[in-house]
C-alpha cells in the first residue's frame, strides 16, 4: 500500500530533506504534500479528507510561525475526522519534557534532529507497520 504523506515545516530546505529521504528510503509513496505551518497543515488534511483520499502520516516540526507543532497536534486531536492520522514530530528539541508533552498531546512518534535517513524509515515502520515499507521498485 502506497503512502500519502504530509510534511509540515516552515523551512523549505527541511521539507525537501524529508521528502528526499522518504523517496530514497524505499518506502512506497503515492503523494507527498507540504505545508509551511500548522494552520496550512490542517487545511491540507481537511482538503484531502474531503476529497476522500486522506493522509496516512504527518511529519511536523515544532517551532513554526502562525501555528506551531504543539498547537497543530492539539488541533488535530480536537477534529474527530482527523485525530486518527498519526503524527511524527521531527525536531531539534529532544528534551524529555518536550517529548513527553507531545506524546500527551497525541503525537505518535518523535525523531530528534540530527537524524539519519534510516531512522526516519524505522519510525515510519514502527508507527504504520512493515506493510508500508514495500520497495518502490
Amino acid at each position: 500500500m502506497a503512502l500519502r504523506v504530509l510534511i509540515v515545516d516552515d523551512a523549505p530546505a527541511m521539507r525537501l530533506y524529508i521528502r528526499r529521504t522518504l523517496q530514497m528510503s524505499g518506502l512506497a509513496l503515492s503523494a507527498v504534500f507540504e505545508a509551511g505551518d500548522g494552520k496550512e497543515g490542517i487545511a491540507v488534511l481537511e482538503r484531502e479528507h474531503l476529497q476522500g483520499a486522506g493522509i496516512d502520516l504527518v511529519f511536523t516540526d515544532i517551532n513554526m510561525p502562525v501555528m506551531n507543532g504543539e498547537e497543530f497536534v492539539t488541533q488535530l486531536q480536537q477534529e474527530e475526522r482527523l485525530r486518527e492520522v498519526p503524527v511524527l514530530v521531527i525536531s531539534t528539541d529532544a528534551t524529555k519534557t518536550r517529548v513527553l508533552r507531545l506524546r500527551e498531546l497525541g503525537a505518535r512518534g518523535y525523531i530528534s534532529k540530527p537524524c539519519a535517513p534510516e531512522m526516519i524509515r524505522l519510525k515510519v515502520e514502527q508507527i504504520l507497520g512493515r506493510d508500508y515499507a514495500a520497495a518502490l521498485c
Partner: protein
Amino acid sequence: MLPRCADVDLVDAASEVLGMMFFTDVMNGNVVADPPERPVTVKVEFQGASSGMLHMSMPRETAEALAANFLGLPMGEAPTEEQMNDVVNELGNMVCGSFLSKHESEELFDLAKPEILAAAAELPSQVATLHRSLQLDNGNMVLALSWDRLNHAA
C-alpha cells in the same frame, strides 16, 4: 569552569549534525583559524531555563557545499542564494537545538528563528563566549556560543 563539558558538547553537536545530515566530516574540532573572508554567518537565540545565542560563521564556499549536500543537488550544481541561506539557518537551528538538548534534558527551551547576518558582522568576543573553530572537509567553521551559564562560570 565551563558547565558540564560545554565545549566538548558544542563540538559534538556540530559534528553529529554535519555528519548525519550534511555528509560532512569534522576533521579537527579545535583548530586555530582566522575568521573567514566573505563569511556567511547565522545567529540563533535561545531562551528557557538558560538563555543565550549561537553564532556560526563559515566561508561562502563552505556554506554552498553544505547546502548542496543537504539538498542532494547534482554534482556541480550550486544552490541559489535563497537555498543556501535556508540551509545555513537550518544548520544553525539543528546545532543549537542539539547542543541544548545535551544540556537541558529536563527543561524546555525555545529557539528563535535563525537569522543570517550581514557579511561584515563580527562574532561576539566577550569573556563569556565560547569559541571553537572546526576544520571540515570543505573549509573551516567558527562557532561562538554566548550563554548565561558561561557568565556564571566566568
